[in-house]
């Protein structure tokens, strides 16, 4: 419970055995009253086991569906168990749970709250094609949402009951669909979106992809996904 709201933290995890227990323990320590659902996205390591030992509820997918599939599983769980708020937290430990109450508070006025990296807090920087991709996405999505969104691909999001029901029913499983397409459709359906500045930490385990080749491919795919999302009904 945060301010009388029943809160579920959804953690999509794919082969994150090295960091998952720490993430669960940290969130529990910071926010004792919330439930944590770890959606094990077909991991081949013991992510599910470690998450359960750390005290999380675990939903284990039989094979890898990608973040979108894991997140819809989470929203369906939240819908079926009557949660008022669902918050996505990454399994690699880059989201600081101390910002979660801020996100929950912002839900009083909005349906979707994005924890954004470039909005002043922390020192997250990107360059090259990845930066252009993020600029393009922010420009288009800010227009659609009628509010300034600086970090549209952030995986740190909170949504209220109304949106939980919407996303439990529809959540794309395709690459980048979980961030871009969701925002396009949610904004177009008239939900109120806002962002809260958060500081993100370096990942506890694993390395972020940053080669120029990969960034360029990312730019292209982001553009295509955005175009598709804009013409889809």
């Amino acid at each position, binding site marked *: 419970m945060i301010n009388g709201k029943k809160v579920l933290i959804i953690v999509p995890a794919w082969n994150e055995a090295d960091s998952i227990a720490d993430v669960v323990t940290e969130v529990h320590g910071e926010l004792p009253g919330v439930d944590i659902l770890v959606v094990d996205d077909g991991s081949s390591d*013991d992510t599910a086991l470690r998450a359960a030992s750390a005290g999380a509820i675990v939903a284990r997918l039989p094979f890898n569906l990608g973040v979108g599939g894991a997140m819809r599983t989470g929203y369906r769980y939240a819908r079926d168990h009557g949660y008022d708020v669902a918050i996505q937290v990454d399994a690699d430990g880059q989201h600081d749970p101390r910002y979660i109450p801020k996100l929950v508070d912002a839900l009083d006025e909005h349906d979707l709250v994005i924890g954004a990296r470039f909005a002043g807090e922390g020192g997250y920087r990107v360059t090259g094609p990845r930066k252009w991709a993020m600029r393009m996405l922010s420009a288009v999505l800010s227009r659609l949402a009628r509010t300034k969104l600086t970090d549209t691909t952030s995986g740190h999001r909170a949504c209220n009951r109304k949106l939980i029901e919407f996303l439990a029913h529809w959540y794309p499983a395709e690459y980048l669909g979980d961030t871009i397409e969701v925002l396009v459709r949610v904004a177009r359906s008239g939900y109120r979106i806002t962002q809260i500045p958060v500081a993100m930490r370096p990942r506890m385990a694993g390395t972020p992809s940053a080669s120029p080749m990969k960034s360029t491919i990312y730019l292209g795919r982001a553009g295509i996904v955005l175009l598709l999302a804009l013409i889809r009904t």
Partner: protein
Amino acid sequence: MKLTIVTGLTALAVLAFMVELLRRRQLQEKYAILWLAVSIVILPMAFFPFITDDLAEAIGIASGVSLVLFLGIVFLLLVTVHLSWEVSRLEEETRTLAEDLALLRSELGNPRDSSAVPAPTTEVPDDQR
């Protein structure tokens, strides 16, 4: 004459193949009927390759063979698009089933050691297929 033999024999072989697949229940009825119909339409054209010439001329195509090629390509394109559509639908269905399974597992409590459940990509030995 040689051409007629080649195309005619091919059409007969294709028809026989379709019937055999159908007989062994390897094709769902909707596909079976589709391909059976295609084979039957192709058969007369294979034995008499020039019967489409008149129709081709009427719509401004130089020869009947070109007309058949054109229609064949359009038809195959539509079939592949249809198959992509079917695969998308099936993927959506498997995804929903996978999610249902995960949700059911979450109700059952503690997950077992994941090593107890082999990954779906594990190779099945030939004698167990």
